[in-house]
């Protein structure tokens, strides 16, 4: 830093050129350590018990439903010819998409040096893992005989049969399992220094041993930080194309087929934008209550929320563009079947799903053009709940409306979910929230060391610490 000609700014001018701080009320290192660690150390608040028991019960509902399915057969779900993929694959794509915001925040915003990511990346990454767990359940059980699911793994068997690597479904197995594994590695790498903080604060023997093991003996030395930061950069660098690839590969499940409504080259970017859109909505769905309940207003500020709303507005508009473009191409292609598939989507028996999708995904987020709406938590919560529902409807519309009108009118159908469909999906929502509640209770939900590093006093050239000019 060249300090040859120091420009002194003060008063109103300083306030104008300075960026809005990401940590409010001048909170320091100690406050951050205490405030975040104490969430995991003091006894759990009453609401936590209520919420955990309730969502735990819903998790048991999912367990019961999957058990019933295994015991009876996949026919307990409502899918049948011609609709062989219905709620199960809708739910799979829905949950996978949710995960994308976590990786976007942790990887892409890291590479683009967006400092505001530090307050939200840990919980968003945790959300990613839990969403992918929920997602993986559906295709695993949809195979019917779930105990045969290991056939997806390329391991030598006495049968001498190998996987079909030409199939997008197998690509998807690799994409989703890689995504989950890499997300775990990335998340855990980011956790190590904070686990060391909990280790050093531990009062009970159990906590000392547990955090002692998982902190790996981290001692914050610069010779360690040097390798650590490089490793984190590499992980962010590979996670960036990974997150873009996962939903692209998921979209290949559809786009590589020759079904009108699925056979579309716009799918990969359209799916990725939709995934980020839906994922940010879910991040806000979880973080707004967490922020209020744990008093995190100084760390997750109005600016953080504002930024996330803007990303929702941007990606929501991209999704809206994609919906329009699909229609245009259906008309412009001159393909009768393609045209029918799309007109049928908007005006056929599933018109209600299509227009729910349009109003939730395209119209609702337009409120975020207005600063007042991006500042009103109730408006934000209403919009993100719309987006959560809208993104589920999007997958339902794509999957079910394309299948329910087969090429021969004799094979037309209408899908109705069974009670097992409904209870299974509800159960996975319970599982998702349940895992998140366990996470916020036992692990630091905000990356303490990264937030400390963006405080003004963490800059070695910070004025208050008596620095005289630069260093050699």
């Amino acid at each position, binding site marked *: 830093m060249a300090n040859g000609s120091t420009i002194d700014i003060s008063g109103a001018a300083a306030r104008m050129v300075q960026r809005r701080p990401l940590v409010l009320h001048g909170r320091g290192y100690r406050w951050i350590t205490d405030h975040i660690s104490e969430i995991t150390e003091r006894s759990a608040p009453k609401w936590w018990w209520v919420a955990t028991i309730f969502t735990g019960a819903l998790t048991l509902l999912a367990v019961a439903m999957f058990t019933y399915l295994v015991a009876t057969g996949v026919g307990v779900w409502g899918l049948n010819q011609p609709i062989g993929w219905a709620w199960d694959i809708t739910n799979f794509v829905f949950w996978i998409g949710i995960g994308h915001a976590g990786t976007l925040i942790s990887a892409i915003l890291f590479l683009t040096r967006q400092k505001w990511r530090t307050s939200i990346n840990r919980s968003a990454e945790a959300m990613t893992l839990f969403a992918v767990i929920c997602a993986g359940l559906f295709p695993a059980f949809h195979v019917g005989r779930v105990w045969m699911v290991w056939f997806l793994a390329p391991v030598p068997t006495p049968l001498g049969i190998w996987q079909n*690597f030409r199939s997008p479904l197998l690509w998807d197995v*690799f994409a989703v399992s890689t995504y989950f594994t890499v997300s775990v590695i990335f998340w855990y790498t980011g956790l190590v220094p904070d686990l060391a903080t909990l280790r050093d604060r531990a009062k009970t023997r159990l906590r000392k041993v547990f955090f*002692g093991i998982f902190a*790996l003996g981290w001692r914050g030395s610069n010779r360690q*930080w040097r390798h650590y930061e490089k490793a984190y950069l590499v992980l962010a660098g590979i996670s960036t194309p990974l997150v873009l690839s996962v939903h692209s590969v998921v979209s290949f499940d559809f786009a590589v087929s020759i079904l009108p409504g699925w056979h579309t080259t716009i799918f990969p970017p359209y799916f990725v934008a939709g995934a980020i859109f839906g994922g940010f909505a879910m991040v806000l769905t979880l973080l707004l209550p967490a922020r209020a309940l744990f008093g995190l207003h100084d760390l997750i500020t109005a600016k953080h929320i504002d930024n996330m709303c803007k990303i929702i507005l941007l990606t929501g508009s991209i999704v809206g563009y994609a919906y329009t473009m699909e229609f245009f191409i259906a008309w412009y292609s001159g393909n009768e079947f393609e045209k029918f598939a799309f007109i049928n989507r908007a005006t056929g028996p599933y018109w209600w799903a299509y227009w729910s999708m349009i109003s939730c995904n395209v119209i609702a987020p337009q409120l975020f053009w207005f600063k007042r709406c991006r500042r009103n938590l109730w408006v934000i919560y209403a919009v993100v709940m719309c987006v959560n529902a809208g993104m589920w409807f999007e997958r339902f519309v794509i999957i079910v409306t394309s299948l329910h009108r087969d090429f021969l009118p004799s094979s037309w159908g209408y899908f109705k979910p069974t009670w097992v469909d409904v209870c299974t999906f509800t159960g996975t929502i319970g599982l998702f929230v349940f895992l998140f509640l366990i996470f916020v209770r036992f692990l630091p939900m905000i990356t303490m060391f990264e937030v400390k590093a963006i405080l003004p006093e963490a800059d070695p*050239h910070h004025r208050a*610490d008596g620095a005289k000019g630069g*260093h050699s």
Partner: protein
Amino acid sequence: MSARVYGAGAEFESAGALLRAAEKARDRGFKKWDVHSPFPIHGMDAAMGLGNSRVSAISLAGGATGLLTAFLLIWWTSAVEYPLITHGKPYFAWQFSMPIFFELTVLFTAFATLFGMLAMNLLPRPHHPVFNWERFRRVTDDGFFLVVEAADPLFSTSETPRFLEEIGGRHVALIEE
């Protein structure tokens, strides 16, 4: 003092103070020493005279292994061991292999990066002499420390603590092995 001395440590009041102390320790010619902080400090590698981390080389090797593994897996199973005509597509082609080429490259890179970083940092290592220093507990909270090891050729139990005080260190202490 009955136990052997591991080194001498001092605490500094801020990230900036630690950075300037590190520059002085570097210029003094110490070889076996380190600074400890709750978060990585910008510019500290240069202040300590450290070069670029080589973890990325391990990552690259991991990525190359992943790509090769994916190629061998797909080519050998689809074209050699179990050739089966599906959809009239060739037994092997790079086009349909791309997604799995990419995924396994990323997967192996991630593992190589994590384990490479841990190996270069000599972790996991739950016990380390610096943990014997009571004040050091604050390194993961708000403490900034500089530790010179007794194994350093310039180390002396009388001189080094005085040097640490001169460069602005407080709570200077000898750390037991």
